[in-house]
């Protein structure tokens, strides 16, 4: 059926001769307007695990308003209220999970206004995490607007606002009265950031001052899950609610000073922020205990406070020591202490329903953690240009990190000192070259090796090695062949840990771009990760020693073709294969696709696309799915032309 649809469309497109070109109409009102829209629909048919398909690709049947683009410019090139104004949008309608819109208007040396909006539907429902008890289907929205005034002048000012939101259905689990229950926890997260600042320039100096305020709110509430109210050991969470309003306010002050010299750039930066955290919890939950369903009500209230004052700064410089030798140097520091404290009071009320009596067991807890962090890093890179086509690179990085973490029970107002930190000193050295033997070829390779004196956690490597090579060869003007290889190795050989990560990645790609309508791309990638760490765990009540293994051998191949089948008709076809033959998660994904674009008038064209997705896992076959997606629409270009 899909094939017949395509053949019919191709016949329709082949019937006409080449479309006659028409000169664009004169700009109306002195504004040249260009733009295009693509509106249409999508049909999705799937088999196998619907949850797995939606987790991978949240595509649905419905309406699509895609590829909206508008471009306004004064006919004379500049002047008026703006030099240009553009609006781009994609993914609107109910068929796509991702929606984007961007607006920008600017006038040179006067202002630059940008606004953006992003929305996506996040779906996750896989049993391979938390036994499938944490499914979610959320909407994530992000919008922002920023305005720069006098952007290229001696004094420039800027102001901006950003808002992120997350809301929708979600489930979680909670440990309550020695049992584990699924809870419904519909997300209600929001954050706002407001910032303003100024930049003053007088060559070669410039100073930037910025103040911003970030406010984070979490108003997620928790309820017993209606679909799964029973716990793991026979209890039931019958009714109730948990409110956990959380607020974090973070003022951030940024200072930046800079001197741009001909041979010497110097930048100093300092950022101070202080995050203040505030939490109030109120639980009123009714449990039914055991087979007799004895009622127990938990009534708890908590207040939590935390703060994180942070100092971050750096001094950076680039010095052209000679015409061929350049030094880049940075000293960086960051320090903060996170002090959190939670005070909880309440009762566990044992209720005797028959006698209409109750017994209260008081609950009183106080606790928190303190985390102290200090990092100083010195980083130097040298670039030596040996020849116009060859340069050598060398670098050295030294870092001194102090990290301490401990629980505490200090009361409000008490001074909590940071715990004794673990000191980690690391050295990293690197070297490489960049070689461009001709206009047609380039090659870059580098190697980096680092060592650390200690590890804060077991899989923090004490020795790391990475080798990279990347090259591109253009044997003809329209043909490009590129490839790369990355070999990385991380180790922590401490007895009982034996953490070892071997990561090898080889890739090659060829692009033949004959014209905008004739494009051929193909590539192959092989990625091998073998990782192992010694672990100890209890199995059938016996302490067992084993290894945590991750072994993937992932092959990814792709080929795409864009082909002009006639003056009005452009065909596209593509195929992508993902095959993992490693022991950890053998899987096979096929993704063939095809499409056509047929111009049926000077400013109108029809588009139709088909794609098939086939997903197969060898270990979790119940997560397999296959899907057909057919989409099409009408692309309309404004008389002024495409943007």
């Amino acid at each position, binding site marked *: 059926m899909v094939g017949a649809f395509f053949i019919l469309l191709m016949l329709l497109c082949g019937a006409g001769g080449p479309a006659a070109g028409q000169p664009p109409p004169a700009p109306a009102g002195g504004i040249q307007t260009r733009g295009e829209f693509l509106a249409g629909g999508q049909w999705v048919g799937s088999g196998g695990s619907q949850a797995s398909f939606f987790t991978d690709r949240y595509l649905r049947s419905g309406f699509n308003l895609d590829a909206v683009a508008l471009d306004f*410019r004064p006919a004379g090139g500049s002047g008026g209220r703006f*030099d*240009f104004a553009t609006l781009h949008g994609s993914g609107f309608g109910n068929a796509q999970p*991702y929606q984007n819109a961007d607006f920008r208007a*600017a006038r*040179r040396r006067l202002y630059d206004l940008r606004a953006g909006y992003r929305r*996506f539907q996040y779906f*996750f429902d896989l049993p*391979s*995490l*938390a*036994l499938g008890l*944490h499914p979610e289907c959320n909407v*994530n929205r992000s919008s922002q607007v920023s305005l720069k005034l006098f952007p290229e002048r001696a004094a420039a000012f800027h102001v901006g606002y950003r808002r992120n939101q997350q809301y929708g259905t979600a489930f979680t*689990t*909670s*440990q309550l009265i020695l049992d584990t229950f699924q809870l419904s926890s519909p997300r209600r*997260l929001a954050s706002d950031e407001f910032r303003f600042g100024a930049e003053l320039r007088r060559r070669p100096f410039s100073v930037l001052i910025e103040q911003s305020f970030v406010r984070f709110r*979490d108003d997620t509430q928790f309820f017993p899950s209606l679909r799964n109210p029973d716990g793991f050991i026979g209890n039931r969470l019958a009714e109730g609610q948990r409110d956990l309003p959380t607020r*974090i306010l973070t003022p951030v002050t940024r200072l930046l000073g*800079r001197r*741009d010299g*001909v041979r010497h750039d110097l930048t100093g930066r300092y950022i101070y922020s202080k995050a203040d955290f505030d*939490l109030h919890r109120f639980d009123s939950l009714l449990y039914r205990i055991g087979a007799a369903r004895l009622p127990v009500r938990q009534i708890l209230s908590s207040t939590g*406070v*935390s*703060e*994180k004052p942070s100092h971050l700064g750096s001094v*950076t410089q*680039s010095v052209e020591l000679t015409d061929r030798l*350049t030094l*880049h140097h940075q000293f960086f520091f960051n320090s903060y202490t996170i002090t*959190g*404290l939670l005070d909880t009071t309440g009762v566990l009320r044992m209720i005797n329903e028959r006698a209409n009596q109750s017994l209260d067991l008081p609950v009183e807890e106080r606790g928190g*953690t303190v985390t102290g962090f200090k990092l100083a890093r010195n980083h130097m890179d040298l670039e030596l*240009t040996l020849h116009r086509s060859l340069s050598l690179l060398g670098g050295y990085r030294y870092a001194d990190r102090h990290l301490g973490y401990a629980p505490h029970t200090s009361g409000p107002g008490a001074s909590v000192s940071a715990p004794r930190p673990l000191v980690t000193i690391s050295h990293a050295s690197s070297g490489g070259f*960049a070689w461009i033997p001709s206009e047609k070829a380039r090659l870059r390779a580098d190697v980096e090796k680092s060592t650390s004196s200690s590890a*804060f*956690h*077991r*899989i*923090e490597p004490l020795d790391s090695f990475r080798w990279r090579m*990347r090259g*591109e060869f253009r044997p003809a003007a329209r043909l490009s062949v*590129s490839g790369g290889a*990355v070999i990385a190795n991380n180790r922590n050989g401490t007895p*009982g840990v034996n953490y070892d990560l071997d990561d090898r*990645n080889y890739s090659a790609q060829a692009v033949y771009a004959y014209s905008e309508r004739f494009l051929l791309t193909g*590539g192959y*990638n092989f990625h091998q990760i073998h990782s192992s760490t010694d*672990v100890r*765990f*209890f*199995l059938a*009540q016996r302490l067992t020693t084993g290894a*945590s*293994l991750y072994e993937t051998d*992932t092959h*990814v191949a792709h080929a795409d073709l864009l082909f002009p089948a006639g003056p009005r008709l452009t065909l596209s076809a593509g195929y992508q294969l993902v095959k*993992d033959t490693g022991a950890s998660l053998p899987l096979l994904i096929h993704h063939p696709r095809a499409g056509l674009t047929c111009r049926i008038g000077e400013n109108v064209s029809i588009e139709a696309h088909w794609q098939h997705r086939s997903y197969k896992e060898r270990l979790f076959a119940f997560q397999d799915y296959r899907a057909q997606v057919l989409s099409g629409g009408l692309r309309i270009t404004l008389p002024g032309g495409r943007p």
Partner: protein
Amino acid sequence: MRRTAVPWLLLVLWAGLWAQSPQRTYVGSDTCAGCHTEHSEWLRGSVHEKAALASGAAKGQSGCESCHGPGSEHAESPSPKSIITFRLEPASQRSGRCLACHGLAQPNRDFRRGGHAAGRVACNDCHRGRNSESFHRLRAAADTLRGAQPALCYRCHTARRADFALPSRHPAPEGHIKCSDCHQPHGNYNLRQLRSRGVEEVCGKCHEDKQGPFLFEHPVGRASGCLTCHRPHGSTSPKLLTRVDVRWLCLECHSNTPSFHDLSQARYRNCTVCHVRIHGSNLNRRLLE
């Protein structure tokens, strides 16, 4: 004999390379238009037509030569080698022409410090429009990229295309996020050219609820960031984890779990069934709620 000749030949070659090219002077855009009529027409009314250099020997020069350099030698002996063509020159020289104007403000100020400059990638390797005409006709500071992200980045970073083909990934192929949302392509001092000082702040820009501070921290994130447990571009494991089965990931550090954590029971095989607040909790020191 052959052994002794090689160093001398190299020395001669070296000396030749250090020799200065003949002094070129500015001749004005009208001279260029005498031959390059098409380019001159494209440039009329474009943002680069009135581009003027503000410092150095070229102070006050505008038009073609503000980008292509002094044209006296090229006017006398027309050849691609006698003028800056943005094709044959070393990347640092090509970028240097652009940065003379565009390097005065962010985001380009730190271009020389980034990995692209070190790898000899020049501005016009990415920014050159669809073709020479579209670039010369540029009428406003609009997008001049050769193509859209992420395909543009895949041309060199070939391995990233494969990462984003995996089942668990950030939505870059769908165009919802761009490589430049996390990485600063114009260079900075951060490792991997990340937009913030450390990985955790880059991730926190979108994943704000994972950023804290928490009353009860999971300090591994403070020690070495999100990449301890997650692969940033794509993974075969759910939630971009570095292990397919979450218990093995947790056990790598927590190899001293209490004895009741018996992996023969399904409940204990999935650590996050109970330890739900793995990024940090506001209620429980063991990250249970």
